[in-house]
C-alpha cells in the first residue's frame, strides 16, 4: 500500500525524535566534533614527521663513506665530482663540518676522528646549497683509521681504499691511475646500496677515462656498440603510483571516521533503548517494527553523514594549513566535483554500514554487549580497508562487489580521475543492494523480543517467518533480501565460470545454465520453503489456459523487432556503450558457437534462463511486491529491477538495452498478471530469447538467402508492421476472457 502524506510526515517526526535524542547526548557531540578536530591535526603531524621524511629519503639518499687518508679523500672526491656525467645530481659533505646537514648528529659524534680538507668541504657545501636541482645522492665522507672497524660498527656504510699507481695527461689535465678496494658488509642494505652506487659511479669514471685514453691513441670514432639513454615520463592522471596510494588514505580515513560516527548512535538507539527499558512501551504501540527501525536508521545515517561532513571540513582545513594537500593531490588539488563524488560515495557506504550496525546492535542486550559485538566487526572492516591501500590493486570484477574495498577503490580512482563508469555503476548498485539487504535483516531482528530486557533472538530468526506467519506470499522485505543476495552472488559466480576456458563451449553453457537454475530457481524456492509461504501461489504454478500460452508464444515471436528498434532509438539518442572492438568480439563469439548444436544453444541459453528468470522475477519477486503494491506498480517495479539486472550482468554497461529490457519486463509482468500463471511468460521469454539466438546463429545463412539483417540501421517497415499485427493478436488472445484468476 503506498504511503500517504500523513504517514510520511509521521515517519519524519519519528526519525526526528531519534535524531533529537541522539544529538542531545554529549557523547555523540564528542564523536561528532572533537574527534575530527583532534584527529586530523594529529594525523598531519604524523604525516609530516614520518611520511614526508620517507618520501624525502626516496628522493635523496645519503651515503656515509669512510677513507683512511686525506689524500684518498681528495682523489675520490675529485674523480666523482669532475668526471661523473651528472655532477649536479651528486653532492659531497663531511661528517664533522658545519655543512653536514645530511648526516645525523649521532653518526657525526661517532666519527670523531673524521677530518677533511676545508677546501673540499667548502666546494661540497657550495654544491649542496646550490639548490637549483635537488641532489639525488649525497656522500658524506669520514676519515678513519680502520675501515673494517668503521663498517663493522656501522659508523660508515662503506669504506674505500685508493692507491694512485700512475697518472696520465689528457687535454691539459692530469688524471690518476688507481688500484683500490671497497670495504663493505652484505648484512646491511645501506652498505650494499652505497657500494653499488660508488661502484657504478667509478665504472662510469673508468668508461670515461677509457674513452680519453682511446682518443689519445687516435681512436675518436664511436667505440661502444650500444648506447642507451633514459627518458622519464609521468604517469597519466597527474601522480606517481605512490601518490595514488597515498590519496587512497584520504577516503579510507573518511570512511573509517564515518563508521566511528555511526557506531555510538546505532548502539544507543537499539541496545541502549533495550537496556534503559524504553523499548517495550514502543513495541506495545501499533507502529510497525520496520518503520521504527527505519526511523532509527535515518538517525544513524544522519549522524554518520554529519560526522563525515565534520571530518571533510576538518581534513580540508588541515590539508590546506599543513600543505599536505599538495603532496597528496598535486598542485591542482582536488576538483570540487571529485569532492562531491567522494562525499556521495561516503553516503553510499554509510547507508550500507549503518544497516549492518543495526543488525548487530539489535541482537545485543546491553550497550556493553553491543560494543563487544562491534569490535570484531570493526576489525574485520579494517582488513579490506588496508588491503585497498595497495597501489597496484585494480577496481575490476570481484573488487567491485566487495563492500568497503569497492568504495575506497572507487574513491581512489575518482581522485586520480581514472574511474570507469560501468565499474562505478556496479559499485553503487551492489552497495545499495547490500544496504537494502542489511536493512531488511535488521528489521527482522529489531524488537522481535523487545519485551525482554535481553534479546533471545537467534540467527535463525533472520530466516523464519516470525512476523509473517500465515502469509501466502513472501513479504516485500523478503524480496529485497533475496535480490540483495542474488545479484552479487550471480556476478561473482559468472565471473568464476569465465575462468573455465579449458572446458568445451557446451560444458561452459551447461555450467552457466546450472548456475542460473541454482540462483534463480533453487534460491527463491529455498527462501519460500523456510518462510513457509504458499509455494504454488508464490510462484504462480497454476495450469495455464491454452489461449494464454498461445498469446505468450505470439509475443515471444513478434516483439523482437520492437526491442531492436528501441535499441536503435536509444543509440540515436546518444546511449552508445559498445564500439568496434565489442562488435568484433561479439561476431567472434557467434562464430565460435557454430561448433555447438543450435538445440544446445536454444535449451541452455534461451529456455533454461527464461524459465529460471521468470521463476524469480515473475514468481517470487512479483508475488512479494504484489502483497504491497497495486498491479501497475508491481509490474513497473519488477520490470525496472529486471531491466537493471540485465544492465549490470553484462560485461560492459549496454545502456541502450535498458529501455528494451525494462519494457520486456513490463510485457512479461502484464502477461503474468493477466494470465495468473507463470507459464505463458516462460513461453514468451523462451521464444523471444530462442528466436534472437537462432537469428544470430544462422545470421550468415540468412544473409545468403537474401534476408538482410542490419547491425546499425532500422528494420524495414514491413517487418515492423507484420510484427505489430502478431503482437495485437497476442493482446487480443490474452484479453479474450476477462474472467481473471484470483491469484493477485
Amino acid at each position, binding site marked *: 500500500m503506498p504511503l500517504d502524506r500523513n504517514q510520511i510526515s509521521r515517519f519524519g517526526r519519528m526519525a526526528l525524535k531519534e535524531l533529537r535524542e541522539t544529538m542531545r547526548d554529549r557523547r555523540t557531540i564528542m564523536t561528532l566534533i572533537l574527534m575530527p578536530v583532534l584527529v586530523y591535526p594529529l594525523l598531519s603531524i604524523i604525516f609530516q614527521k614520518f611520511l614526508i621524511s620517507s618520501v624525502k629519503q626516496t628522493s635523496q639518499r645519503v651515503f656515509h663513506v669512510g677513507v683512511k687518508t686525506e689524500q684518498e679523500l681528495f682523489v675520490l672526491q675529485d674523480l666523482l665530482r669532475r668526471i661523473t656525467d651528472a655532477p649536479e645530481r651528486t653532492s659531497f659533505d663531511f661528517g664533522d663540518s658545519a655543512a653536514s646537514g645530511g648526516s645525523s648528529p649521532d653518526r657525526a659524534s661517532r666519527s670523531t676522528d673524521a677530518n677533511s680538507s676545508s677546501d673540499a668541504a667548502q666546494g661540497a657545501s657550495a654544491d649542496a646549497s646550490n639548490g637549483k636541482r635537488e641532489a639525488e645522492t649525497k656522500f658524506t665522507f669520514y676519515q678513519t683509521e680502520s675501515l673494517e672497524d668503521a663498517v663493522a660498527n656501522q659508523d660508515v656504510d662503506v669504506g674505500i681504499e685508493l692507491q694512485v699507481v700512475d697518472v696520465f695527461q689528457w687535454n691539459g689535465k692530469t688524471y690518476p691511475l688507481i688500484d683500490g678496494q671497497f670495504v663493505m658488509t652484505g648484512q646491511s642494505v645501506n652498505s650494499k646500496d652505497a657500494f653499488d652506487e660508488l661502484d657504478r659511479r667509478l665504472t662510469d669514471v673508468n668508461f670515461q677515462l677509457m674513452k680519453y685514453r682511446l682518443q689519445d691513441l687516435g681512436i675518436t670514432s664511436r667505440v661502444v656498440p650500444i648506447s642507451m639513454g633514459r627518458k622519464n615520463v609521468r604517469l597519466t592522471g597527474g601522480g606517481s603510483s605512490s601518490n595514488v596510494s597515498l590519496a587512497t588514505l584520504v577516503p579510507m580515513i573518511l570512511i573509517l571516521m564515518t563508521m566511528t560516527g555511526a557506531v555510538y548512535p546505532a548502539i544507543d538507539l537499539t541496545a541502549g533503548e533495550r537496556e534503559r527499558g*524504553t523499548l517495550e512501551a514502543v513495541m506495545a504501540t501499533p507502529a510497525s517494527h520496520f518503520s521504527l527501525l527505519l526511523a532509527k536508521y535515518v538517525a544513524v545515517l544522519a549522524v554518520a553523514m554529519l560526522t563525515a561532513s565534520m571530518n571533510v571540513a576538518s581534513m580540508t582545513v588541515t590539508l590546506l594549513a599543513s600543505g599536505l594537500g599538495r603532496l597528496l593531490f598535486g598542485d591542482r588539488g582536488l576538483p570540487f566535483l571529485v569532492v562531491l563524488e567522494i562525499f556521495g560515495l561516503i553516503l553510499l557506504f554509510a547507508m550500507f554500514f549503518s544497516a549492518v550496525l543495526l543488525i548487530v546492535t539489535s541482537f545485543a542486550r546491553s550497550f556493553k554487549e553491543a560494543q563487544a559485538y562491534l569490535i570484531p566487526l570493526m576489525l574485520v572492516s579494517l582488513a579490506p580497508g588496508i588491503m585497498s591501500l595497495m597501489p597496484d590493486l585494480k577496481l575490476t570484477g570481484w573488487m567491485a562487489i566487495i563492500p568497503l574495498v569497492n568504495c575506497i577503490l572507487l574513491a581512489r580512482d575518482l581522485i586520480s580521475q581514472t574511474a570507469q563508469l560501468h565499474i562505478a555503476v556496479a559499485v553503487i548498485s551492489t552497495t545499495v543492494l547490500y544496504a537494502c539487504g542489511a536493512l531488511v535483516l535488521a528489521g527482522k531482528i529489531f524488537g522481535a523480543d523487545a519485551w525482554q530486557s535481553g534479546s533471545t533472538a537467534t540467527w535463525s530468526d533472520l530466516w523464519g517467518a516470525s512476523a509473517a506467519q500465515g502469509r501466502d506470499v513472501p513479504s516485500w522485505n523478503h524480496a529485497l533480501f533475496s535480490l540483495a543476495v542474488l545479484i552479487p552472488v550471480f556476478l561473482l559466480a559468472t565471473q568464476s565460470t569465465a575462468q573455465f576456458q579449458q572446458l568445451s563451449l557446451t560444458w561452459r553453457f551447461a555450467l552457466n545454465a546450472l548456475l542460473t537454475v541454482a540462483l534463480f530457481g533453487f534460491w527463491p524456492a529455498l527462501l519460500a520453503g523456510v518462510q513457509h509461504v504458499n509455494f504454488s501461489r508464490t510462484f504462480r504454478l497454476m495450469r495455464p489456459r491454452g489461449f494464454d500460452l498461445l498469446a505468450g508464444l505470439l509475443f515471444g515471436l513478434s516483439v523482437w523487432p520492437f526491442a531492436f528498434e528501441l535499441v536503435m532509438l536509444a543509440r540515436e539518442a546518444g546511449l552508445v556503450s559498445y564500439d568496434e572492438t565489442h562488435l568484433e568480439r561479439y561476431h567472434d563469439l557467434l562464430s565460435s558457437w557454430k561448433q555447438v548444436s543450435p538445440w544446445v544453444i536454444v535449451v541452455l541459453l534461451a529456455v533454461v534462463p527464461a524459465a529460471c528468470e521468470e521463476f524469480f522475477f515473475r514468481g517470487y519477486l512479483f508475488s512479494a511486491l504484489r502483497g504491497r503494491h497495486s498491479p501497475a506498480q508491481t509490474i513497473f517495479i519488477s520490470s525496472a529491477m529486471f531491466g537493471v539486472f540485465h544492465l549490470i550482468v553484462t560485461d560492459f554497461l549496454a545502456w541502450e538495452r535498458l529501455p528494451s529490457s525494462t519494457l520486456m519486463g513490463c510485457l512479461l509482468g502484464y502477461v503474468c498478471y493477466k494470465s495468473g500463471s507463470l507459464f505463458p511468460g516462460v513461453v514468451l521469454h523462451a521464444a523471444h530469447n530462442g528466436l534472437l539466438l537462432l537469428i544470430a546463429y544462422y545470421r550468415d545463412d540468412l544473409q545468403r538467402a537474401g534476408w538482410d539483417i542490419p547491425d546499425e540501421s532500422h528494420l524495414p517497415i514491413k517487418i515492423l508492421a507484420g510484427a505489430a499485427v502478431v503482437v495485437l493478436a497476442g493482446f487480443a488472445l490474452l484479453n479474450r476472457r476477462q474472467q481473471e484468476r484470483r491469484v493477485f
Partner: protein
Amino acid sequence: MKVLSMIGVHQLTKRFDAGNQTVLAVDQISFDVRAGEVYGLLGPNGAGKTTTLRMILGLLPPTSGYAEINGIRTDLGNGELKQCIGLVSASANLYQWLTPRETLLYFADLYGIPPEHARDDVARLSEQFGLAGFLDRRCSVLSTGQKQRVQLARALIHDPPVMLLDEPTRGLDVIGTQGIFEFIGHLRTIGKAVIVCTHRLDEAERLCDRFGLLHHGKMVIEGTLAELKAKTGQTGLMEMFLHLAEIPAIVNSHALSNDVAATNRTSSSESEP
C-alpha cells in the same frame, strides 16, 4: 442478559525453551474482564503474570490458547489491536533526553494520532496528571513520582478501552502508590477494562473487583473477593494464596515478605524466562 467481556483469555499457555529443558510459564489459564472492571492478576514473582500480559498485548506468541480484545484475537499480528491497549509497566522507562511533552507527542505519533489532536491530548493529560510544571524539562531530571505520572499519561495518550498495568506501584513511595490507586479508580470510573498484575496482595484487595491467583503458571482460583472467601473459607488474599498453594504458611509468608522487600529494593525486571 450476559455482559460482553472486553478482554477474554482462553486456555492460554506458554512454554519457554531454556537450554535442554522446557519451562511451562503459563498453563492453560482462562478469565475475562469487562469494561469498567479492574481485574487483579496476582501471584508471587515467576508465577506467570507478566508473561500473560505480554501474550494479551501480542508481544509474545502463545504456545496454545489465545487472548482476545473485544472479540479480536491478539496473536494474529493485528497491529491495529494495539490501538485498543494501554500499557503501564514498572520495568519501562522514559527517554532521558526528551521532555515529557516530546515523549507524549512521540507516542501520539506511534499510535497514529494526528498532530493537531495530539497537542490537545497532551494539554488534557497535562492538566489531569499535573504535568504542567515540568512538561518541558528533560525526563532525566524528573523525580520518580513525576516520571511515574508521565508514564501514566503516556499510557492514556490514545485513550484505549483496555489498560494493562504491570507492577504499577513497584519502587514508589506512599504518595506515589496512592497516586496509582487514584489512577486505577479513575480508569474504572471512565469505563476501562483494567488488568493489574501485582504480588502485593494487600494492595490488590483495595483496588480490584475480581481476582485471579496464579501459582507456577496455573490459575489456582478466580472470582470476586466474596466468592473467594466463600470458596476457601479464608478472610484475606494472602491467607487464601498460602492455603491454596498448600505450603506451610510461616515459610511462605516469610518468602513472600522477602519477595516484596527484594522487589522494593530494586527496580530490576522480573526473572521470568
